């Protein structure tokens, strides 16, 4: 039995009024008073996908974010990215709100930042756009492979090799070797992650359940991801294999572009 009522000011004590004509709550019965947001938060269920373990404080943050977003907008909330990695080495919280309107939602993002004290990157995407992203963008597909959402997500998008798009994405990883000494560990990690995601995507391989670090370690060698993050990897240890993977990906992409052009 639940009733919703408002706390109102009294002279000596504040009070909550409830209707005399009601079911339950007889005179003299003890009741528990709880803020309505707490009740709403408790009703938010989270559905992790390929997330083995996440710290309870992070689950609390995700529930708070989801409740805050859903109180302002209809739609399902998906949290992904480095926030879900073990530990607390993240810069911000990546959130997608599945909605019929699209774009970055700056105002609500700012409000969430004020409420949580965390940097929130909120993007609104429609479900068709999300599925299209998973089908065509290797990095997006990789990131969506590990997420926590407010609804069980069935990402049944068949990969669509758009070679021009893949070419664009591969460009982001082109200058890795030349700029190795100048880059921070996080920048190196991003370039390598991008390349590894493209390679797996083009070969139709399933991304590892364990996430980005496992993908990088499978593509290069064990421990590569951690050493990139810590910026302790030497150029000579990765240069040859990186060049191999990059050149192979580029060759396949150019062939794909050429074959696509011939078919027209």
């Amino acid at each position, binding site marked *: 039995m639940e009733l919703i009522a408002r706390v109102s000011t009294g002279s000596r004590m504040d009070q909550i009024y409830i209707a005399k004509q009601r079911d339950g709550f007889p005179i003299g019965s003890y009741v528990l008073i709880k803020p309505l947001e707490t009740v709403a938060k408790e009703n938010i269920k989270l559905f992790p996908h390929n997330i083995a373990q996440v710290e309870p404080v992070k689950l609390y943050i995700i529930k708070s974010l989801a409740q805050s977003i859903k109180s302002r907008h209809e739609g399902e909330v998906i949290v992904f990215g480095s926030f879900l990695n073990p530990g607390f080495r993240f810069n911000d919280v990546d959130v997608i709100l599945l909605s019929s309107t699209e774009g970055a939602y700056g105002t609500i993002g700012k409000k969430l930042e004020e409420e949580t004290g965390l940097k929130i990157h909120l993007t609104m995407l429609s479900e068709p756009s999300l599925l299209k992203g998973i089908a065509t963008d290797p990095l997006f597909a990789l990131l969506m492979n590990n997420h926590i959402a407010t609804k069980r997500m069935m990402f049944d998008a068949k990969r669509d090799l758009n070679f021009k798009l893949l*070419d664009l994405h591969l460009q982001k990883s082109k200058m890795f070797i030349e700029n190795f000494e100048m880059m921070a560990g996080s920048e190196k990690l991003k370039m390598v992650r991008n390349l590894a995601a493209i390679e797996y995507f083009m070969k139709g391989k399933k991304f590892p359940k364990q996430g980005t670090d496992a993908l990088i370690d499978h593509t290069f060698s064990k421990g590569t991801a951690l050493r990139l993050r810590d910026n302790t990897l030497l150029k000579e240890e990765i240069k040859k294999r990186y060049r191999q993977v990059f050149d192979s990906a580029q060759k396949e992409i150019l062939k794909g572009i050429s074959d696509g052009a011939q078919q027209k």
Partner: protein
Amino acid sequence: MVHNRNKLISLLIGNLANAVIHKILEQAVQEENLRQHYDKEKLTSLTLAIKYREEINPVNAPLPEADVSMIAAQTSKKVDAELKKRIARGYDSLNLGLVEPAVNQMLKGLVIKGDD
């Protein structure tokens, strides 16, 4: 790691060229590129180009004309070569006319070249 000026300029050119190539390829696939909606970060090549530029004197003023001409020419050459490689493979919708304006814009943005 300390680089000499020529090496810094060479690295700057490489990154500028990559940033321009990325910009032109992006325009060719704009409608299909959903990453624009959720990719919050500046292209690393551009970030690195800025870092290299900050190591080349004069930092807060345009570079000497000889350097500007050389950087512009070599950047355009690299971009042209990459785009032509793709055009030769049948990549349509690549506009080579965008190269020079894009290079110019980058050079001005990084205070390599002064305003005309």
